């Protein structure tokens, strides 16, 4: 392994993040606060508890997941699309690095940024509602795995995308709806039976449910299924990326 290269890519990508640190920090704080003003205070006070958890607290895991998934996807897709777009990818292709090193560097950086934002949201949320985390280690595991797997998916999108519209297409048309419909702001059990059944085909349901379980000990689906879902998803993404670099698809003619 060329760890120097991994380090170089990781730091270079993180530097981009630190240049806009204030913005990276303020925007999740602001949007989380807005969610709590709207959902927590205005609507939440009229909502019943969900499975014994006050609504304001109930939405926190979903809120974190929503941001983390979209951030990890867009960071990673942009991270690899940008060098492709301006041509600096030539250096990556001519360097003594294999696909694993490139992926660890780019995906690692994108996942770190998403993790940072997730933690900022968690802390902000804790200022608005009482939060208890029943299984902190499981919570962290779910959070980190989600950052990684969505960053991996973003990386694939970045390589696939031929222009900026396509770059935003998948996050907009696939990730956001799946997350919103994945039980971020409600429990699947609140849905009519038909929609419940459909929801079980949404992979995000398993992640959010598992993540929420780590907080409150309540879950829509068994926790093991959640872990299985995310591990499978991660493995599928790594497999796809391995294939991309082996065949040179969209990167090496």
């Amino acid at each position, binding site marked *: 392994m*060329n760890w*120097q290269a991994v*380090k170089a890519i990781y730091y270079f990508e993180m530097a981009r993040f630190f240049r806009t640190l204030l913005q990276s920090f303020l925007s999740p704080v602001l949007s989380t606060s807005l969610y709590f003003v709207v959902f927590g205070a205005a609507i939440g006070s009229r909502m019943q508890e969900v499975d014994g958890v006050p609504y304001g607290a109930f939405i926190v895991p979903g809120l974190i997941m929503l941001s983390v998934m979209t951030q990890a996807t867009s960071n990673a897709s942009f991270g690899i699309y940008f060098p492709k777009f301006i041509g600096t990818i030539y250096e990556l292709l001519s360097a003594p690095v294999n696909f694993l090193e490139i992926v660890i560097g780019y995906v690692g950086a994108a996942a770190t940024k998403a993790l940072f934002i997730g933690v900022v949201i968690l802390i902000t949320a804790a200022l608005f509602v009482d939060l208890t985390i029943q299984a902190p280690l499981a919570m962290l595991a779910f959070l980190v795995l989600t950052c990684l797997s969505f960053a991996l998916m973003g990386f694939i999108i970045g390589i696939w995308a031929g222009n900026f519209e396509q770059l935003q297409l998948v996050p907009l048309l696939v990730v956001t709806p799946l997350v919103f419909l994945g039980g971020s702001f409600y429990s699947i059990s609140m849905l009519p039976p038909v929609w419940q059944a459909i929801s079980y085909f949404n992979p995000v349901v398993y992640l959010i449910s598992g993540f929420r379980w780590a907080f409150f000990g309540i879950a829509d689906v068994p926790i093991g299924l959640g872990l299985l879902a995310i591990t499978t998803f991660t493995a599928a993404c790594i497999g796809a990326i391995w294939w991309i670099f082996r065949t040179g698809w969209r990167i090496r*003619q």
Partner: protein
Amino acid sequence: MNTIVDIQNLRKIYDGGPLGTFEALKGADLQIKEGEILALLGPNGAGKTTLISTVCGITRATSGKITVGGHDVVSEFRAARRMIGLVPQEITLEPFEKVMRTVRFSRGLFGLPKNDAFVEDVLRKLSLYDKKDNKIMELSGGMKRRVLIAKALAHEPRVLFLDEPSAGVDVELRKGMWDVVRSLRDQGVTIILTTHYIEEAEQMADRVAVISKGQILLVEDKDALMARMSQKELTIELAEPLNAIPDALCAYGLELGRDGTTLRYSYDGKAERKGIRRLLNELDSAGIAMRDLKTQQTNLEEIFVGLVKDDNP
């Protein structure tokens, strides 16, 4: 001298999408010697960039074999690529990055530990040191090209590829760049530069390879090529046809042509000083009257154009 880059029977077919496929390299062979400056000379679209990109790993060969320092560029890509620095034809740099950070990144990417003293030294040699904390977008075109060179040198390559390095670089800068290239060669770095300017190949190279339509047409020592190039020919039109060249003039190696109405004299245009005048004097004393004189030069351009034309019926 050892061969450091060995390219054998290299073919590259691009899947051109809607335009169909295009064969950019048609079995190119090229052996580059360690420590030399080789100019890869060819018109636009000849396949120079494709050749370099395939050696460096940016494109995949359709068939053929390439080794760098004895390492196969596919199966031993790490060892091969560690030896190579590439300065691409297009200026491709991240506009918001600072010079120092960009160059440092290149070093790390090639697996070398951080060494800012070395990187700063490279920048100094390329007269970029006082710009090291500037953003790329604040630099001129020539400076950007030198940043690309600095990036390629940051990992101490043994082989340096410069793809059309003088494109968009003014004369003053070009001179500075050539000084850097020569000093690298003096340190034992092998340099391959592509160009479609013959003068550039003449000024810089130890050897010249001519490429056209995906094939290497000729590889020759520049001096030998120059000697061929500096061959001049003097054609003398005679007032009266001659049957034979007089014995007194046989030392000049003259050729009689066009039914004895012309004499052709070949000479080295660089070395020649008094030969022509002596020849003319001797013609005069032999009583041979002439009507007209004409000199002709075959230069690299003509050799080059001739080669390219032969290849293009």
